[in-house]
């Protein structure tokens, strides 16, 4: 496959861009603050897939692309590559999260309890106006909720399968690794992957091509502090906080590297509030590191590292799919000419054969 550079068309391109701007410019009238507060899940999706936590840029990108979220993520990712990376913040631990939501479908009674948070899980999905019942919020506790994962007690009791620890995490934005892929690179790819693609991959493992039917051990949404070293005092300083979603899902029991049978788990983490993405990531994680192939064949998509590493990035797949719109005249005309020549050759051969038979 190849395509050739084109030239000309400047006027049409300019007019097309003007037309597009006219078509979408009303979105520019939306105030950034309003968009951030109202379309909060869209903002979070764009930050997560764009791999850059910036609500302002996510808002600008959504407006610029008139609500096309994949395109918006592209803007954010492009901006990311234009900024200097100043360093690495202090490692985040999801157990330090100030929780706004925390549920478990594995355990009914967990230490710290379950918090539904702001959720519409139990909403009747009808487009009718539902009355908001007034609740006196003052009667409830105003304490923070910082609670360990519901799987921590099992982990402390050595009942959960652990995987080998890497000394240093890989950074795929500097060098993309080759197989066998370090676990950190796999998690990084999925953490910035496209939500729908991760969902699709995870769904294959639940449906017809795998055997992962997990239970959500711990699903949490909340805030985590970003900390960095002050250059003059050399002491730790809080830069701010980010919202994030983390999921630990529990699979079946499997043998670890010592041959002991342990509970298998998968981990999902992403910027912002995006439960579907974090759950999907945790399922793929389970499938990649604990495949047992009781359903389907050994060609299971969600257990294939190559498949996951090279196909879940939204910006890359979006770019590749959309480049087919650009002129490929030479490619296609070459194929078409070969096809026509081959057809003519076959017709001539057939005619020769017919003439020979008639003689």
């Amino acid at each position: 496959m190849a395509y050739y550079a084109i030239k000309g068309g400047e006027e049409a391109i300019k007019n097309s861009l003007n037309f597009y701007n006219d078509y979408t410019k009303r979105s520019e009238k939306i105030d950034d603050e309003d968009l951030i507060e109202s379309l909060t899940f869209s903002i979070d999706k764009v930050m997560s897939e764009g791999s850059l936590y910036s609500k302002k840029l996510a808002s600008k990108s959504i407006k610029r692309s008139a609500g096309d979220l994949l395109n918006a993520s592209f803007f954010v990712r492009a901006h990311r590559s234009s900024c200097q990376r100043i360093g690495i913040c202090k490692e985040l631990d999801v157990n330090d999260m100030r929780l706004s939501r925390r549920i478990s479908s594995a355990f009914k009674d967990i230490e710290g309890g379950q918090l539904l948070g702001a959720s519409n899980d139990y909403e009747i999905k009808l487009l009718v106006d539902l009355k908001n019942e007034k609740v006196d919020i003052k009667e409830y506790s105003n304490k923070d909720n910082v609670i360990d994962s519901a799987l921590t007690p099992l982990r402390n009791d050595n009942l959960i399968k652990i995987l080998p620890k890497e000394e240093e995490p890989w950074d795929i934005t500097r060098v993309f690794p080759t197989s066998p892929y370090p676990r950190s690179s796999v998690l990084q790819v999925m953490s910035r992957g496209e939500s729908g693609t991760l969902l699709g991959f995870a769904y294959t493992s639940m449906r017809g091509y795998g055997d992962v039917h997990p239970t959500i051990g711990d699903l949490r949404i909340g805030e985590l502090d970003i900390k960095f070293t002050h250059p003059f005092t050399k002491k730790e300083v809080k830069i701010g906080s980010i919202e994030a979603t983390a999921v630990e899902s529990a699979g079946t029991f499997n043998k670890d590297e010592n041959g002991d049978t342990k509970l298998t788990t998968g981990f999902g983490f992403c910027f912002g509030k995006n439960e579907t993405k974090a759950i999907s990531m945790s399922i793929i994680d389970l499938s990649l590191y604990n495949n047992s192939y009781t359903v389907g064949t050994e060609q299971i998509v969600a257990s294939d590292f190559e498949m996951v590493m090279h196909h879940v990035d939204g910006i890359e797949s979006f770019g590749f799919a959309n480049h087919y719109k650009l002129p490929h005249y030479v490619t296609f005309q070459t194929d078409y000419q070969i096809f026509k020549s081959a057809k003519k050759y076959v017709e001539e051969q057939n005619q020769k054969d017919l003439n020979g038979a008639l003689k």
Partner: protein
Amino acid sequence: MKREDVNDLAQFVKLDKLQNLYKKIKKNHDVRILTTPTEQTLLVPVKDPISGGSFYSGEVLVTSTIVEVEKTKGWSMVMDSNEKLSLYVAVLDACFEKNIFKDEIKELLKEAKKEIMKETKKQNQKINSTRVSFDLM
């Protein structure tokens, strides 16, 4: 209150209040901008509970500035794209160290802290109102 609190708390002070104080400082003292407010990113490592290692989940956009107030250096790194905020916070950081308008800075930060705590408590009440324990049928 420590110097390390300035960077975080000052981000919650209303921008016009910070601007007023910045103007006052600039009028009476020598303020030099050594590094103009610049958008940068911080890589975010997250602990992987399964291996105990970590992985990079993405980057955070920050705006950093370095200033000098009466030959004392000040620094800020604020969340997101926020040039003015970053400049004002860096100046406050230097002034806090140099004891310039320190009481006024402390007062602003205390107010901000009070407001944060008030908002957090309100938010926590909403969150805690959703505490659930389902009954088995």
